[in-house]
């Protein structure tokens, strides 16, 4: 069965510092990978996705992620964090259940930004 692991439950960075959020997945076939962000009291917004091709994908809000098959990883990065980036971040893999295509989510990483 597919699974997604986000090893860091909480991360605190200073504003302007770089950021890397880790994501490891387990999936038997070619993975379809996603990063979503959830701001307090909000739903989920897609940051970026990887389906195939270039392993470095660019997303919204200055985020990027790199797919590394050898490491089963899809880490999210941002060169300079803004205070508004404080939120919960979820990595997910697209997979099949009996009725269709669903997402399996990691446990999430809560990002806090220090002034």
């Amino acid at each position, binding site marked *: 069965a597919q699974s997604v692991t986000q090893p860091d439950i909480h991360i605190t960075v200073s504003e302007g510092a770089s950021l890397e959020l880790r994501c490891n997945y387990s999936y038997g076939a070619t993975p379809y990978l996603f990063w979503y962000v959830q701001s307090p009291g909000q*739903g*989920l917004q*897609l940051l970026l996705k990887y389906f195939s091709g270039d392993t470095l994908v660019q997303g919204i809000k200055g985020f990027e992620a790199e797919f590394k098959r050898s490491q089963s990883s899809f880490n999210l990065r941002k060169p300079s964090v803004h205070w508004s980036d404080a939120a919960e971040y*979820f990595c997910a893999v697209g997979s*099949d259940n009996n*009725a269709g*295509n*669903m997402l399996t*989510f990691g446990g999430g990483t809560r990002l806090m930004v220090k002034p």
Partner: protein
Amino acid sequence: SAVISQKPSRDICQRGTSLTIQCQVDSQVTMMFWYRQQPGQSLTLIATANQGSEATYESGFVIDKFPISRPNLTFSTLTVSNMSPEDSSIYLCSVKLQATENTEAFFGQGTRLTVV
């Protein structure tokens, strides 16, 4: 893309009662999903609700507790029945515009349920 509206956005309910959550999409979609996000936790799929077929429930979720309706391609409801405090969660509706893995899912804002 798809715009998803969920109602209510939040509610406080008495134990033993039931709450029906509505999910309205601004376009016709085949695949709709209901997720639960318990406090401080990640999202867990409750069921897949495809139009024209019975909802398919994931392990640990049953129809008697979480009945789902999908009357057309733009609307679905999830009912949380006979609620207990353990049902306090955020419930999210999600849709996919295409029935393939390599497409993104869109999410509603969620319904924050507190059972007292």
